[in-house]
């Protein structure tokens, strides 16, 4: 699971905090943060929604909420992106609740391969199907963690920020989710 780096790390923490404080004082300065995080937030939403127009609308909604609530933002050592991802995640969940639409998530083949490597399984079409079925069978709080890490490619620090936990705790939660995934995978394989 090493080597996954989010593109937001190129923005230094000090720089980011300066931008946040500037935006708190003058909302027009929020434009810098908007420019920097627009793409990752759009892609985060589009990955779940799969509709360009709707993703655009929800992304706008996320940034509007972020702008309105920026005064309440407190630096707790997590990247600013975690806070935005948390808002985005809530918006997407609210959308699915209100529209009563089923959440169909497309998993890239390379992401499925990565998940299989993590649970020490070799790639095959059959294993791929099994792992996705096993993933769907996991409780929501566990499959969300796997999605964040392997499909959305968030760093452990960003996941920690979303859940307001430490980075070590986030790592532990992801590994536990993977253990459960492996268990479900083996159960499914045993049944076939």
């Amino acid at each position, binding site marked *: 699971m090493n080597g996954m780096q989010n593109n937001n790390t190129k923005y230094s923490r000090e720089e980011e905090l300066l931008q946040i404080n500037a935006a708190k004082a003058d*909302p*027009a300065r*929020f*434009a810098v943060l*908007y*420019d920097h995080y*627009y*793409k990752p937030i*759009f*892609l985060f939403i*589009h990955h779940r929604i*799969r509709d*360009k*127009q709707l*993703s*655009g*609308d929800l*992304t*706008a909604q996320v*940034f*509007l909420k972020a*702008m*309105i609530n920026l005064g309440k933002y407190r630096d707790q050592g997590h990247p600013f992106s975690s806070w935005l991802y948390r808002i985005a995640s809530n918006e997407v969940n609210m959308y699915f609740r209100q529209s009563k639409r*089923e*959440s*169909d*998530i*497309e*998993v*890239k*083949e*390379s992401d*499925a391969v990565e998940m299989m490597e993590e649970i020490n399984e070799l790639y095959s079409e059959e294993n*791929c*199907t099994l792992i*996705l*079925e096993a*993933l*769907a069978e996991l409780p*929501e709080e566990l*499959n969300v963690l796997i999605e964040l890490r392997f499909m959305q490619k968030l760093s452990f620090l960003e996941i920690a920020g979303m859940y307001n936990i430490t980075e070590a705790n986030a790592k532990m939660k992801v590994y536990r989710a993977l253990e459960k995934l492996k268990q479900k995978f083996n159960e499914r394989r045993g049944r076939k």
Partner: protein
Amino acid sequence: MKKYKLHKENSGQQISDEEMMKYKDFSRLKHQYDTVTKRPKKPLYKNPYMFFVLVLIILLALLLAGEL
């Protein structure tokens, strides 16, 4: 319950930067923000002229109430 579907690389819905940027508009966002957070109008009593008029109305009302 969620459904996960395998998506082969270079197939299915990919979104280009250009398509994404079509929805990016900070001035619209700022306008929405200004609309949502617009401060309410200054209350009448904070305007010295209106404050005087309000006091006058209250005094007149008291005067009339006392005479009745």
